[in-house]
């Protein structure tokens, strides 16, 4: 347990850094935030009033403490586009994004693990080529271009999936909610809309995951304990899965952190393309409307989520390999 506490404490500097940076982004950068918020038609009086209201006339330190107090109360400001508190907007849309992210990760891992294992165990050229090829494509095609191509192929060419832009803007975790409510029509339509974006994000995650696992498997299979296991007469399958793969999982979890950052960023590009009602689409529309509070709220929330996910990975790694406990 002290290990867990140490890791939790270890996130404190990151958290401080994140709060300071988002504070700077939301208040202290060049340009008159008050004039911006008031709009182009506002009078000088109105601007001054907003400035006083936002306490932009106070010192930077005062503003920072005010910002901390607001954060502690969960106050991220009001969204210009929805008229709702930003926190409320984000909270209602986050489940849909998590649903998409989880499906994408499952899809990516579900492909990366067999590919990485197959490519490393008796090295077959076509599996190796498939592994390299798919990860090359996954990292070489910008995710929004890939998304638009999927829409073209599945909607315009084959017409098998619903037109993404006609998606109703349902909030909440659409798939899980409709499943629990036993609304089968809604369930089927939301699953149908989830398939393409999670495939796309999954392919994005696949590239680094497969590459990491491939390398780790090769290293594991070349190590002494595998030679010993082989000499001891263990079966090839047992060696591959029980010995090599388990040891290769640790580097894989290390690669997972970077992949999560990639997915969190890509959500902004993928969700609007597929009309998925998550935080990414919300941020993208906030960008178009110059809705500062919403964008900075999204940036802050995503960063906090990223830190939490990385913490969870760190803790999970101890379960996979007790040696991690003794690292730094």
């Amino acid at each position, binding site marked *: 347990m002290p290990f867990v506490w140490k890791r939790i404490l270890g996130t404190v*500097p*990151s*958290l*401080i*850094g*994140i709060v*300071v*940076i*988002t504070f700077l*982004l*939301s208040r202290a*950068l*060049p*340009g008159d935030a008050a004039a911006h918020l008031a709009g182009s038609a506002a009078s000088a009086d109105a601007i001054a009033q907003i400035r006083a209201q936002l306490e932009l006339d106070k010192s930077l330190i005062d503003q920072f403490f005010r910002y901390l107090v607001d954060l502690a109360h969960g106050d991220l400001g009001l969204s210009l586009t929805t008229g709702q508190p930003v926190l409320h907007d984000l909270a209602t849309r986050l489940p849909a994004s998590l649903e998409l992210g989880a499906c994408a990760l499952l899809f990516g891992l579900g492909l990366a693990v067999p590919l990485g294992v197959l490519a490393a165990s008796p090295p077959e050229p076509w599996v190796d080529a498939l592994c390299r090829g798919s990860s090359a494509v996954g990292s*070489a*095609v*910008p*995710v*929004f*271009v890939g998304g*638009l*191509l999927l*829409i*073209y192929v599945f*909607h*315009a060419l084959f017409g098998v999936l619903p*037109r*993404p*832009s006609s998606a109703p803007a349902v909030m909440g975790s659409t798939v899980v909610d409709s499943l629990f409510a036993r609304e089968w029509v809604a369930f089927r339509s939301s699953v149908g809309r989830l398939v393409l974006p999670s495939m796309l994000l999954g392919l994005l995650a696949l590239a680094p995951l497969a590459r990491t696992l491939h390398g780790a498997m090769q290293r594991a299979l070349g190590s002494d304990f595998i030679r010993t296991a082989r000499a001891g007469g263990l079966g090839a399958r047992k060696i591959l899965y029980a010995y090599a793969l388990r040891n290769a999982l640790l580097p894989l979890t290390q690669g997972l952190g970077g992949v*999560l*950052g*990639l997915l*969190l*960023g*890509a959500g*902004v*590009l993928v969700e*609007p*393309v597929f009309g998925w009602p998550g935080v990414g689409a919300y*941020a*993208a529309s906030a*960008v*178009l409307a*110059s809705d*500062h509070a919403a*964008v*900075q709220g*999204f*940036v802050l929330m*995503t*960063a906090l989520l*990223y*830190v939490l996910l990385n913490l969870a990975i760190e803790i999970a790694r101890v379960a996979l390999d007790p040696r991690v406990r003794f690292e730094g």
Partner: protein
Amino acid sequence: MGLFLLARNTRGVVGESRFAWAAAAVFALLLACVAFGDLLAPHDPFAADGTARLAAPSMAHWFGTDALGRDIFSRVIVAARFDLGMAVLAVALSFVIGLAFGALAGYFGRWIDRVLGRVADAITAFPLFVLAMGIVVALGNGVSDMLVALVVIDLPFHYRLARSEVHARRHLGYVEAARLGGNSALDVLWSHIVPNVLPAMGVQAVLRLGGALFNIAGLSFIGLGVHAPAPEWGLMASEGASHIASGAWWSVVFPGLALVLAAASFNVLGDGLRAGLYPQRRA
């Protein structure tokens, strides 16, 4: 720096593989677009032809036309200057700043190292594309704001590499000798350590160009930094997005293809550069 090494030692960098030669050819083509884009484009990239809106690729318009009837082939060519120029400028600025800070932190250590290390950690605590979004929006959503955002999110990588490479060389024999010879600390750092750090940093910089390019295109795809009617690959894909469901694939495919080819050629050349500079590590 990378370009200089490339020019001096093309064969060593490109190597024997056909793949690398193809990448070099694509790279040369892109450079031609950057340098002579205006001359190469068969049409005016801004001229809207109302009679040929969303026309499919044909002999008159090789890549088809967009929703306003502008020639996509010309726009893809002309956009190379902005996209590639921006990527190179962003990575180069980040490289120089990261090298300066990283060298100071690695050589002097102590509080400089601790403070700068914390700043780098704070930046990488964000998913970087999301941070770039936040910076561009906060600064006012212009092209220069995009440049600042790209430089900031790339800084930690250049900084950390420079720091660790300088740190590892700080007490090597030739460095101690230079110090004993009476050179000032900055002289030792600048004339004896930094030149040895440049190759590794140059390889990393070339390898980061592809990512910078995707970030530029991604930011303009969601409406940040570059604005219509500027020809830019990400923005063009975004303009084509609303027409793809009705079958106008060319408005997305060709700008997308330009992005893919440019990023892939950067990566192959970066790998070649690494193999040329560190032959012992060639797999």
